């Protein structure tokens, strides 16, 4: 039993070293941002309907299209994962992240309160955007 606990703890520690697994870390980040986009999209739609604000819905719909295209591109680059693809992942992920942050601003502006998954996704998005500032043109 003790040995099993020690092995489980060791696996956890190994699994929590993202620098050694950049592709897995980036893939999880892209998916986290995608899930946040999905959640905030529903929030936007509900808030726009409740307040009858087509401008909010349109702003979110535009940002959603950008986020979706960028995150699909980031995922394709993740699947390739050669030297140039690694930079593409960060740049496309950051573009999708900026779109998520735009959706978050629109939803908050329409009075929506953000669930934890969106808050976490937005925090991760800000990190990706910061990373891209040093990496992307």
């Amino acid at each position, binding site marked *: 039993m003790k040995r099993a606990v020690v092995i489980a703890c060791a696996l956890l520690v190994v699994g929590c070293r993202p620098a050694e697994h950049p592709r897995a870390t980036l*893939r*999880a980040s892209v*998916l986290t941002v*995608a899930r946040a986009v999905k959640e905030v*999209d529903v929030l936007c739609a509900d808030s726009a309907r409740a307040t009858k604000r087509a401008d909010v819905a349109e702003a*979110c719909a535009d940002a*959603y299209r950008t986020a979706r295209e960028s995150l*699909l591109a980031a995922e394709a680059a993740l699947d390739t994962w050669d030297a140039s693809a690694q930079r593409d992942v960060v740049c496309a992920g950051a573009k999708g992240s900026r779109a998520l942050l735009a959706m978050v601003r629109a939803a908050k502006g329409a009075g929506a309160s953000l669930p934890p998954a969106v808050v976490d996704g937005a925090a991760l998005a800000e990190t990706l955007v910061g990373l891209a500032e040093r990496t992307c043109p």
Partner: protein
Amino acid sequence: MSGIETAITLVGLAVKLAPALERIVRAGVAADPNNPLAARVAAVLPPVSESERAANDLKR
């Protein structure tokens, strides 16, 4: 059947069933929408957003 024979039979069964059990577990994991290893962006984000539907409804 003695205890030892029962244990040997059970171990033999477990060995025979292991590949099938592994396939079942893998299929379950792959089908789990919360599993980050199985999910794809296209599965999370459909082409048409809820916001777009809302915008279209509000413009009518």
